[in-house]
């Protein structure tokens, strides 16, 4: 049964101004259409150039469900190729990262390709003489993803020709990337080791929405952050507050704290929490770091960079970054009810190691499959994925602080507990889903 394929009106009717139909989370056909349209019409995060420093280095990931490779070409540019042999479909690499040398070689029939994907050689090529191979799909080599943009080291790609250019799609939201990168005295980041990989039996959008949901931390995370605060109360007086408690405690901040932190929305589904302050604002200063920043940027600019403590920035459709702690989370869709979350950490080049220590600790405590914060989040998502099968109410509410005159696709700042950013995401969802239908 196809209810949604080829039916733009049916897709649009799933998103109302302040509620969305459950089919965006549970319906297999809607999920399939997301893979074909939403993830092809938007700029999807691929990886960071520090993962492929040398020519021939590659890193494998996905755009929606499609396997792709990010590779450093011989001319030093970054290419993104679909990861299949044009011959029989064999995935060219199975290891996530490695070095291909001067060319990729398919392990099935030894067809080889330059690192920009173009066909290099085929064994026993005379068997293809006068067969028209040049005009076939196979003869064109490994297909590149046509639209690739490297923003200060962060590589994005867009599959379809329709959609917006990179700068227009992201606009001012790139300021969150700028802040994360500028926190390195030399303006450079490096991926620090393997990502934490956490499997979720829920729809990918639940995770994205949760990134700007500021009314859940003190409820869902009472058992972890609240317990941390209580256990810490028993420490002998005068004990230095450990880094772990600095990380946990702000989750228990009162509603007022989150209301006042503010939320900013941008066009095309991007937005962030923590306009004025955030749960990352009050971490201890790291000895020697501020001095290095002042030496690099001057005092005024160094203070401005470090004074910007955005909480979570959502890059629509499926990326979240945390500038103040140099961490990004990629929400990779696998099925309507299955999502892989990969959480990457970054080293600020030329900054003290203790910053990376904090980044890694934050990732372990909050984003790991062994994280007591992650456990309760996942519990909520999975309960929602089940609860949405109730037929009596088929709508998910995103109405908090909604105003019927609320504009769409604008830049605006407002109360930190608004669900405007969720509405903003669904407006973008509807727009980019239907753009190529």
């Amino acid at each position, binding site marked *: 049964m196809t209810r949604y394929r080829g039916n733009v009106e049916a897709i649009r009717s799933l998103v109302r101004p302040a509620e969305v139909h459950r089919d965006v989370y549970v319906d297999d056909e809607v999920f399939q259409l997301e893979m074909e349209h939403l993830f092809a019409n938007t700029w999807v995060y691929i990886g960071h150039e520090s993962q492929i420093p040398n020519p021939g280095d590659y890193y494998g990931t996905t755009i929606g469900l499609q396997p792709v490779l990010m590779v450093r070409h011989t001319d030093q540019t970054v290419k993104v190729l679909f990861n299949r042999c044009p011959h029989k479909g064999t995935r060219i690499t199975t290891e996530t990262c490695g070095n291909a040398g001067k060319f990729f070689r398919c392990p099935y029939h030894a067809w080889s390709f330059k690192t920009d994907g173009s066909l290099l050689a085929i064994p026993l090529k005379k068997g293809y003489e006068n067969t028209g191979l040049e005009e076939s799909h196979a003869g064109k080599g490994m297909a590149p993803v046509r639209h690739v943009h490297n923003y200060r080291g962060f590589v994005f790609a867009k599959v379809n020709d329709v959609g917006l250019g990179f700068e227009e799609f992201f606009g001012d939201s790139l300021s969150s990337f700028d802040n994360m990168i500028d926190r390195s005295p030399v303006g450079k980041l490096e991926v620090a080791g393997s990502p934490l990989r*956490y499997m979720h039996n829920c729809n990918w959008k639940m995770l994205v929405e949760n990134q700007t949901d500021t009314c859940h931390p003190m409820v*869902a995370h009472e*058992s972890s952050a609240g317990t941390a605060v209580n256990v810490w109360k028993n420490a002998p007086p005068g004990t230095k507050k450990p880094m772990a408690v600095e990380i946990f405690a702000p989750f228990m901040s009162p509603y007022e704290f989150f209301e006042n932190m503010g939320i900013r929305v941008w066009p095309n589904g991007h937005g962030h929490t923590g306009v004025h302050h955030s749960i990352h604002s009050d971490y201890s200063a790291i000895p020697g770091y501020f001095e290095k920043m002042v030496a690099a940027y001057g005092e005024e600019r160094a203070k401005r960079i470090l004074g910007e403590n955005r909480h979570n920035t959502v890059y629509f459709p499926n990326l979240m970054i945390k500038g103040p702690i140099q961490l990004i989370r990629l929400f990779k869709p696998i099925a309507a009810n299955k999502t892989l979350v990969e959480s990457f950490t970054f080293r600020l080049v030329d900054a003290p190691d203790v910053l990376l*220590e904090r980044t890694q600790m934050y990732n372990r405590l909050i984003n790991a*499959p062994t994280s007591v914060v992650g*456990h309760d989040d996942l519990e*909520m998502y999975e309960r929602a994925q089940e609860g949405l099968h109730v037929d009596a109410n088929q709508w998910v509410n995103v109405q908090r602080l909604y105003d019927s005159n609320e504009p769409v696709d604008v830049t605006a700042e407002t109360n930190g507990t608004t669900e405007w950013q969720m509405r903003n995401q669904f407006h973008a969802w509807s727009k980019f889903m239907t753009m190529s239908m």
Partner: protein
Amino acid sequence: MASPTDKEIIDFVIHEARLLDQHRFEEWLALYTDDAYYWMPLEWGQTDPKLVGSLMYEDKLLLQIRVERLKGNRTFSQKPKSRCHHVLQTPQIDSRDDAKGEYVTWTPMHYIETRYDDQQLYAAWATHTLTLVGGVLKIKLKRVDLVNCEAAFGNIQLFM
């Protein structure tokens, strides 16, 4: 106390797993020294617990928070509670330093964690660094290397 015999060391490691299987978490935590760490690396052969990601690298304060959380009334991911089951190979004593009172054991194991209808099987090697505190064996470091450490996991809520 005299230096522990091999059997005493082996029995200690087996006893630790039993306390976990029986949800005797307070007694379990008391087996750890005050400066102990519980480490579950993310990478194969990982040597750095701080600047490289790990699944867990927790001091006694963080372990205490976990144990307290498991008892909480609003610990939603533990309604219903998880259960666990260890199958250990006999621990092997890799090093013995009686002068320093330090002992390292290596224990291949299968670990099962269940909740609701879900049952997950993990395979790992546990490396215990034990030390004598006031003549009593304690855990200074427990390192758990999962055979598939870099795989994507769902919730792992108890202790391996």
